[in-house]
Each structure stands twice: as structure tokens, then as C-alpha cells.
């Protein structure tokens, strides 16, 4: 009998394979390998989607009945899915296949952490009264689409910085990686997209908090760190449009911003606590 855990286990390894294919394609400069990377990524995405839907159904079978977005395990799985989805849409729109290794690697790492860490329970659990709301879906989905876009932007930034630091040789003309100017433009688009969804995520969280606790903003560590992340990316967008920053400086700000995303996601749960501490519940 196929269960969601089997599907999600397959997904984990499919993402690893996908990341390796993308990496091999860039190293050996073979477009055909990159194409296989895309195919693997799309297949993994579909299997994972089936796994998530199945887990949703399973929670109804257990009598709890809620969207699989309620704890650390489920959010990691969704994060992996969102990263890959956003990356593949970008790949389709920009016709660039060579940027896939980082998104696929992040998707794999998220899945691997969710599956193998002893600190993350994959058990389907009922919802606490505070989480019983349709805002849960809106809040988690929007936040994680934002986080996923920032993860993709982080990958682009690393590629930008490494490709910039390499001395210009004749070889780079044959490289499958896009031109740095294009990378910079993709990066900006991705950050702006992520910023839109992060704003949506903060706002849905805020509206929900007002319904649940009667305070749309209470400077809880998670809230505050999401604001810090928002401020860093806002600084990036203003530096780029108003002060004409391009390239490496924007890439570094995006890397710092993603550091804030990771801290908002993991650091706050493990180090600071607060209203969102149930997200850490085993």
C-alpha cells in the first residue's frame, strides 16, 4: 500500500539525483544532462505533490483532518516543494536550465532534514485550538512561497559571486551559466517576488494573530525576525532602485537576507521561543 511517507521518501532521493544531474550538466557542459535534471525535478515535484495530498487525506482518515502545514516536518516538506516549484517556473520562463543545482540541493536538504533528523517528528498530529483556522493555510503557504523565492535568489547570488570571482577566460563563453548581468536581473526579479509573498505572509499572520489573540503585532520573536528579514530585503530593493546597486553588493544582501530567513525559520524555534513555539513541538 502506498503511503505518503513512501512517496516523500522517494522525493527526497529524487531531489538528490536532480541536484547531481544539474551539477554534472554544468561541470561537463552538457545540455542533455541539464534536461534530465529538469525532468527529474519535475517528476519529483509531482510525486511530492501526490505525497502531500495523500498525507492530507491520511489526516482525515485519522480523524484529525487538517492541511499538512501544521508542524516543522510538514513545513519543511512544503518548503522543498515550493522551492522546486518556483525554480522550475523560473526555468521555464527564462529558458535557463543551468541554475538548478542550488534549488534542487536545498529541496533535498529540507527533505532530508525532515526525514532523518531525530528532532523532527513526522507523525500526523491533531491541531491545537490556536491553529484551527483557515488562516493557517493562507499564512503558511504565503510565507513559504516567499522563503522559497529567497532560497532560489540565494542560489543565484552564490552563482553570481562565484562566477564573478573567476578570472575571465575564453572558456567562460562556453559555460552554460547565464551572463552575470542576466543573473543579476533574475536575482532582482526573484527577490521582488519573494518580497511580495513575504509581505503577504506577514500580513496574513498579522490578521490571524488579531483574530486569535487580539493583537496584530506583539513583537513576538518570530514576528520580529520576519520583520527583520522584510527590512533587509526592503533595503536591498531600495539600494538597487534608488542607489543603483547591482551585482555583487545585491548578491551579498540577498545572502544576508536568506540568513535571516533561516534564522526566522529555525533559529527562533530552537533558540528564542515565543508564540510560534508550538511549531517546534515534537
Amino acid at each position, binding site marked *: 500500500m502506498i503511503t505518503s511517507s513512501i512517496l516523500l521518501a522517494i522525493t527526497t532521493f529524487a531531489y538528490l539525483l536532480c541536484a547531481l544531474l544539474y551539477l554534472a550538466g554544468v561541470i561537463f557542459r552538457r545540455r542533455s544532462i541539464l534536461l534530465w535534471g529538469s525532468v527529474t525535478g519535475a517528476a519529483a515535484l509531482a510525486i511530492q505533490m501526490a505525497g502531500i495530498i495523500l498525507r492530507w487525506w491520511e489526516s482525515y482518515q485519522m480523524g484529525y483532518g487538517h492541511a499538512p502545514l501544521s508542524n516543522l516536518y510538514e513545513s519543511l516538506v512544503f518548503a522543498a516543494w515550493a522551492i522546486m516549484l518556483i525554480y522550475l517556473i523560473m526555468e521555464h520562463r527564462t529558458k535557463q536550465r543551468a541554475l538548478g543545482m542550488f534549488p534542487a540541493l536545498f529541496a533535498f536538504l529540507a527533505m532530508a532534514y525532515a526525514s532523518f533528523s531525530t528532532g523532527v517528528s513526522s507523525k500526523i498530529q491533531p491541531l491545537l*485550538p*490556536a491553529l484551527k483556522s483557515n488562516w493557517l493555510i493562507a499564512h503558511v503557504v504565503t510565507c513559504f512561497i516567499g522563503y522559497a523565492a529567497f532560497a532560489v535568489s540565494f542560489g543565484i547570488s552564490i552563482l553570481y559571486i562565484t562566477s564573478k570571482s573567476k578570472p575571465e577566460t575564453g572558456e567562460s563563453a562556453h559555460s552554460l551559466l547565464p551572463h552575470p548581468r542576466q543573473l543579476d*536581473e533574475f536575482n532582482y526579479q526573484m527577490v*521582488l517576488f519573494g518580497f*511580495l509573498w513575504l*509581505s503577504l505572509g506577514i500580513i496574513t499572520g498579522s490578521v490571524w494573530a488579531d*483574530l486569535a489573540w487580539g493583537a496584530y503585532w506583539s*513583537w513576538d520573536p518570530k514576528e520580529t525576525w520576519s520583520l527583520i528579514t522584510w527590512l533587509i530585503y526592503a*533595503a536591498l530593493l531600495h539600494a538597487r532602485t534608488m542607489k543603483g546597486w547591482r551585482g555583487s553588493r545585491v548578491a551579498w544582501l540577498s545572502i544576508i537576507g536568506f540568513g535571516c530567513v533561516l534564522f526566522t525559520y529555525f533559529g527562533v524555534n530552537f533558540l528564542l521561543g515565543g508564540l510560534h513555539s508550538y511549531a517546534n513541538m515534537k
Partner: protein
Amino acid sequence: MQEKGFWRGLYQKLASPKLTVAIFLVLAAASVVGTLMPQGLGVAELQGHYGQRAIWFITTFGLNDLYHTGWFRLLLLSLCANLVVCTVERLPRTLKIYRRREEPLDPQKLAKYSLNRQFTSKFSRDETEARLTGIISEEFSALQMLDEDGHAAGVVEKGRWSPLMVYVVHLSVLLVLCGALIGSMFGFKGFMNILEGEATNEVMLEGSDRSMNLPFQVRCDKFDVSYYDNGMPREFRSDLTLIHDGKEVLKRELRVNDPLTYDGITFYQASYGAMLRDVEVELADRESGAVRRLIIPFREWVNIPGTKDRAQILRFDEDFRGLGPVMVMIISRAGGEPVGARILIDRDFHGNRVENYNVRVLRATRIPYTGLQVKQDPGVWLVWLGFAAMLVGIGLIYYVSHRKLWVWAAADAGKGTTNVVIAGRANKNEISFERDFGRLCDRLQAELRQEKGEGKP
């Protein structure tokens, strides 16, 4: 004069984009400090963790309540000032674009645009104009011809409103902050604990020792917790009745995530607990050997029969340092200060004694209470409006860019051909615009070079 110079300098500082980025980063850094340092600790609690100097530093800069300090508010205020000044500086320039009539096109200037294409059309001027209009309208948007002598000139643009969206986002930030300010000035936040079966209108205000009275009473008819089969709580529910001027005006169940609003005041299911109603105790008088049973309601004096002593239960704790439920019982004797002690309710403890009585608790009856968060926030609608404006603004900034094309065509006298200059500009997403521009120009060139009756070259 000097003062004028100061204000002018300040204004120019506030208008600089450098300051915007700096304020963002300082706000972010300050917020980080606020999350690393536990908030809301009093000096007494600080003393357990920090040295004298650190405490001086923390209290001087208000790091234990950072987000409500003057300097943090000053930062937010400077963000607002920066927003307002930048808008005042830039909005008129942006608006000019919408008011101004198109200036006559100058082909030499167009040729200097970073995106431009010049080519010769083999058709006459009128024919070229007709074809240009047709193709551009099909690929881009309807070309508007300008009224110019001798040559054809036209402009076409898309996403005209996109440059205004950034002001919408800026306005939205101001709206949210204004809403928050109005809420904190004219609203209140508080807490009420209502015993099952009782009614009250007293709200304990948050962050102070004061309380206030609502113009109506809230009665808790019942409080109930239900559990999942694995022991996790499933639902907290209070059955509430609101009583205004002696009449029951509203009856409703209150659950988490499902607040109740009446008369502009909103109630949230926030917590619950139990309070002591009364205890039945056995008092053994060590001096006379008499053993007496009596029932003492919580916080009420009760005479101990056969004596002139009075007893009261002053405090009750559901769990005191892992010893289970504990109450503080005091006994008042004529001519002396009341004397009290902690009594362990569930254990027969040799220290369960007050004055000359050994105390044994036979029964302790609790009543559940519901804890409600209560709030009135007249500014919240401004916050919601700001949120909506922010999403619309950022969304349109992402999805719509302002793209503009200039087209100029003039007959090359004598040859019967027409010279064409096209230029383009986009305020964002230049690479994709570059691609679209290139494709459009390629098509125009291909179609205009073709001669009548002649096949493709």
C-alpha cells in the same frame, strides 16, 4: 539664516535614499537586539541574570522593553519622515509624466537611447506609417500618433501607472503606523477572568495595575475543554452572555480563533484555569484537644465555633513548587495581627498548622474560570487598509513595468524611401524588455524592407 540652513540640511538628509537604506538596517539591528534580550523583565528579574553595570546599561537604553522605548519610536518616526520627504520630493516629478503633452520627437535624441534601432523602409512615408501602426499595435499596444509636421511620430506605452505604485506602498506603511498609533492612543487591551456562573465588567489593563469597567457585564455560563484521544486539547469554549442595562443582549459561544465583538469591544478566548470556591477543613486545637469541622468560602472570614478566632483562605495556588495545590490560611485573634501559613491541600503534612490549630483539608471545591483577552482598537481598520494597499502596490510593482516606445519616421526625399527611428525604455526588468524590443524591431525591419510584389529576400 543659520537655522534655515540647518532645516534645509535636515530636509536634504531626509530626502536621501542612503538614509532610507540606513534606517532599514538600523531598525533591523535594533529588532535583533530586542529578540536576543528577553523583553518585559523587571529589574528584580534582571538581577538574577546580569551584573550591576549590565543592568544599568539595559535599563538606561530600555533594552528590556526595547520596542516601546523612545529611541525605537524615534527610529520609526524618522522612517515616516523619510517616507514623507521622499514622496514630497519625487511625486511631483512622477506626476509630471501624466500631465505633460508629448514633446516633439527628435530623431537624434532617440538614437542616443540605450535601446534604439534605425533602419530604412522601402515604402513611402504614409505606407510605412500604416504598417508601423499595425504591427506595433498588434505586438505592443495602440500607437498614438503625435501631430507633427512633415514626418510621422508616435508614442506607445504600457503600465503607465506602475511608477505610482511605489508611492502606494509608502503610503501603506504610513497608514499601518498611523493605525497602530491611533490604536495605542484611543484603544485599550486587557484581560478578564470570569468564574463559571458569574458576571463581571472589570477588565485588568495590560501592562499596568489599573483596571477599567465596561459599560456592560459579561457572564460566563460555562467553560469547557475537550481533548483529542491522544490527550492534546481540541477546543476551549466559553458560553458567554452579555448583559447590558440588566437585559441579556447577546448569548454566544466563544472559541479560540473565533472572537466576539460587541459595542466596539472584542473578546478572545485566551486562557482558563480554576479558582477556589470553598474548603472544608478539620481544625484540631492542640491546646484544648477540640476538633472542629467548618466550611470556609474563599476570601471570607468565618468564625471558628466555640472560640473568638476567625479564619480566612487568603490565597490559592493550583501547584506550589511541585507540592500540589496549596492555600494560605490566616487566623485572626482579638487583639493581634492575623497570622497565616501555607497549607498543603492534598497532603497530611506536619507543617499544616496555624496558631494552635492543626489543619487538615477534607475537601477543596474549585470553580473553573475562563480567561478572556479584551480589546478595543479604533485604529485597526487603518492597519487593514494599509495592508491591502501594500499588497496591491508591491504586487503591481512586481507584475507591471512601465514600458514606452517612441517611433519616428520621415520620407527620404528623392529616394522614395522612409527613414525610421525607434527607441524604447522600461523602468524595470530591462533584460526581458530588451528581448521584446529586439524581436519587435526585427519583425518591423523584416516587413518594411520587403518591396511590393517582391518575395522575401
